[in-house]
Each structure stands twice: as C-alpha cells, then as structure tokens.
C-alpha cells in the first residue's frame, strides 16, 4: 500500500515536474513568471492533435475541420513542440522584448503574460470549442499494456504506462537541460543574461538572441509536456494547462526558483505528499500540500534546491 502510494506520488509528481520544467526555464533566465506557459503547454497538446490529422468537434470556428494529412504520434509531438517553441519566440518578440526594452517592472511582465494566457485560452475556445479531445488510444506505444505492475499480484505497485512515459521524458529533458545550462558555453552565457543582461551585453553576448532561445526551449518543452499530459488525461479543454498554473508555481518555488533539477524534485515531492495524505484527510489534500509548502518555505526560504539569496553589503 505504501509502495503503491509512493508510486502514485511519483506519477502525479512527474506531471507537475514536466509542466514546471519549461516554466522554470523562463523564470531562471528572465526572472519573470510566465503565465502564458500554461497556454503554450495547452497549445502543444492541440498542435499535436491537429498534426495527427484528427478532426475537431462541433463548436468553434474550426468545427469539423481537419488536416488533409496525418502524422504519426511521435512525429506530430516533435513538430507540434517545435511550433509551440516558435510560438513562444513569437510571444517574446511581440510582448516580452518590448517590455524589456522599456525597462518594465517584472510584475508588469507577469501581468502581461497573464493577459496573453487569457487571450490564448479564449482563442483556442473560439477556434475549437471547449470540448474534450484525445489522441487515439495506444497512439504512443501501440500494443503496450495500460499499466505496469512493479510489485507482485498480492502487493501490486501499479503505474500507468502514460505516466511512465512522462517520468522518462521528464528525466530526459532534465538531463539535457542541466547539461546544456551548466556545461556549455551558451548555457554559461544564459546564466550571465539571467544575472544581468546589460553586463552580459558588455561581454559580447547577444542577449536578445539568447532570450529568444530560452523562449524557444521553454515553448518546446512545454509543447512536449502538454502533449504527454494530453496523452495521459486527454485534452480536457482550453484550460488544460492553465489549471496547472498554481501547482506549477508551487512546484518551482518549492524546488527553488530557477533551479531546473528543483522543478523536478519539487514536482515529485508535492506529488508524493499529495499521495501520502491519509484517506480520512483526503478532502484537505490541497490544503495540506500548501501547508507543507508554507512550512518548507519558512525553514528554507530559497526553496529546496534554490541558491541562497546572497546579499553582499
């Protein structure tokens, strides 16, 4: 039972983690909370759906429309994620860059991203309605069982296949991103930009280009995540990603702002805490998760893996 609950926690947490990865990327470079990330995440799921040549429902402008061709799931996922990444770049170009150029308060940027999120969600609804969609069952791994039992038949520890995929992809993204940011020259430049864009430009770093890259990566990761979560729980409507906004924020703050492993650790931890809430308290689950977050922050104000807030006077 405990093993199963831990496995559940891992499964829930991996969804939080994969959502948070792209979220935290932008925060760590630009110091802004990008609420539009949830919307891009949603878009990723819809892009993949569209690219697979599947048909839309009865509401919205695109009712009953579909592409004349259909890509296999994994190809559609990659192409969809690239489009999501480009969409991120587009948002950067029209909103975030001008805001940076005007020296806007980070909170204002946050609010702008909120506006974008509202607009995107409602554009999705305008185009394809609020209906639920899903990828054909078995799209990802044809023939694979719906779940895998890691325990015995008497003491089962079951994880659903869709969630195993999410865990695997989350870990893969984590490894690639960590390597990229910590070990490559571009990664070092990214960290420099996140510290101080003006000074970075004095070192010959084209800050705009790097920020564009960040938005692309974040959008790409978000698009992958959206599709995989869509695979797991269906595309439950235009609010698919937005509904992760609060948990996602909790995850990146708990893990430590700007820390990429922190997003994964934070996600898994919140997932496990939620899973371990005793049955009798299940109706207080969200409150407990946030209470724990509150307490962790009081003990470790910078989050679990966050760098301490140094202040040299």
């Amino acid at each position, binding site marked *: 039972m405990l093993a199963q609950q831990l496995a559940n926690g891992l499964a829930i947490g991996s969804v939080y983690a994969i959502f948070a990865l792209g979220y935290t990327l932008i925060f760590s470079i630009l110091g802004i909370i990008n609420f539009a990330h949830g919307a891009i995440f949603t878009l990723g799921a819809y892009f993949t759906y569209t690219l697979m040549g599947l048909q839309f429902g009865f509401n919205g402008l695109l009712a009953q429309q579909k592409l004349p061709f259909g890509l296999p799931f994994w190809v559609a996922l990659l192409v969809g994620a690239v489009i999501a990444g480009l969409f991120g770049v587009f948002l950067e170009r029209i909103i975030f860059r001008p805001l940076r150029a005007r020296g806007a308060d980070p909170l204002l940027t946050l609010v702008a991203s909120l506006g974008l999120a509202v607009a995107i969600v409602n554009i999705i609804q305008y185009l394809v309605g609020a209906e639920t969609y899903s990828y054909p069952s078995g799209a990802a791994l044809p023939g694979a069982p719906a779940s895998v039992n890691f325990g015995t038949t008497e003491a089962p520890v079951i994880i659903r296949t869709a969630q195993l995929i999410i865990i695997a992809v989350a870990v893969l993204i984590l490894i690639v991103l960590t390597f990229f940011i910590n070990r490559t020259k571009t990664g070092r430049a990214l*960290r420099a930009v996140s*510290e101080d864009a003006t000074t970075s*430009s*004095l070192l010959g770093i084209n800050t705009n280009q790097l920020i564009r890259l960040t938005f692309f990566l974040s959008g790409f990761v978000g698009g992958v995540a959206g599709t995989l979560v869509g695979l797991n729980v269906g595309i439950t409507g235009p609010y698919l990603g937005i509904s992760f906004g609060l948990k996602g924020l909790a995850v990146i703050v708990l893990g430590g702002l700007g820390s990429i492993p922190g997003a994964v650790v934070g996600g898994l931890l919140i997932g496990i805490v939620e899973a371990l809430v005793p049955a009798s308290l299940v109706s207080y689950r969200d409150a407990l998760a946030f209470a724990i977050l509150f307490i962790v922050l009081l003990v470790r104000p910078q989050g679990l893996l966050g760098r301490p807030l*140094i202040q*040299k006077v």
Partner: protein
Amino acid sequence: MSAQSVLEIRGLTVNYGAIQALKDVTITVHAGEVVTLIGANGAGKSTTLRAVSRLLNPRSGSIQYQGKDIARLRADEVVRAGIAHVPEGRRVLARLTVEDNLRLGAFVRTDNEAIEADLQAQFKRFPRLLERRKQLAGTLSGGEQQMLAIARALMSRPQLLLLDEPSLGLAPIIVREIFSIIRDLNQSGVTILLVEQNATLALKNSARGYVLEAGQITLEGPAGALIEDERVRRAYLG
C-alpha cells in the same frame, strides 16, 4: 601622433530624459595610445564610455571605431569589434563563480587553447582571484570585484579598452598593479581610454588627456601639459 585614429567621437550629445549629460563632445584616440578623461563628479565621463560601448543611445553625434561607424551597433557587436568596457560599479555577475565570470569575458572568442592560457595569465596577475576561483562573484569584497571586472575585460583580448575608474576601491598596492597592467597592455598594442579620479597617476601613464566639465570638453592636450596646467592642478589634482 600621426598614427591612425582608433576611436573618433564627434559632436556627441547624450540626454537622460530632460537632463543633458553630454554636449557636443569630440574625442580622438589614436592607435596605441592611452588617453585619460578627467572631470568632476557628474561631468559625464561614464556617460561618454557608455555611449561608446552602446549601453545608451546618443541623441546626436558620431562614433567611429577603426574608421567604421559603430553608433548603430548593438552592445555585443561592439565587443565583437574589439572594444571592452570595464564599467563603473564593477557589475560582476553576482551569482556566477569567479571563473565563470572570467570565461564569459572570452565569450566572443573561439580559440579555446588561448583562452585557457589567458585565464591562467589573469590568475597570475591577480592571485586573489585564483584563491577565489570557485567563489560566487557577488560575495567578493569590493576590491576583489574590481579586479575581477578588469580581468574579465582583458579576457576578450580587446584592441580598445574602456576603463571607468579602475582604481576605485583598491588598496594602494593593487592600484599600482593596475597601472602597471595598463602600461603592459599598452605596450602590447592595446589602445586605452581611461576615466580616472586619480588624475595625476592617470595622466602620468597616458599620452594625452581631455577635461570634461558639465558635459563639455573644456581642455585637451598632451598629458604632460595638462599636469602642468594651473586650472587642472587646482581643480583635479588637489
């Protein structure tokens, strides 16, 4: 003196909102020279350097570097063209290590082996930085940060170095070290535009100098002559 000019600032005017910080400033720096810019607080020295490295947009005037107009380039393109700027207030990247800061100084270069060699050279120059190699730059003492800022600029192997008060906050021993570095660099062919409060020391180490007052150039000439100039003595040499 007939050497070709590396930097030609002509008629530079800069405004901060309603405040005019520079008015019609014209400065020439020839290849291989050290040129010093002196002036009181708020005279516009830092503003001049910031305009050259394109941290701000001048209202009017031209800035030519090696014969090419750089007034439309981005800041990072200016660095690629061979200009390094040690800004006022150090501006080290606080949450990166000392080593990362230095490596980023060489961001525009691709000759990896030479970069390693230069890194070692900086550590040799500033042993304190070697000791602090893995420390986050933001926790360095003020003077240590200043050393880092200078070393970082050198990592790009600039042809023109803009130094904004490099001796600020440094112990006397290190100040002397900095000026010996300036001489070394200059001998190895780097051109330097220097802003410095320690005017005597700066002028002693330069070929020529400019005096900036309230955003305008009021005096210019060979460094020796400026040191002797009564007005300069009274106003800036104390």
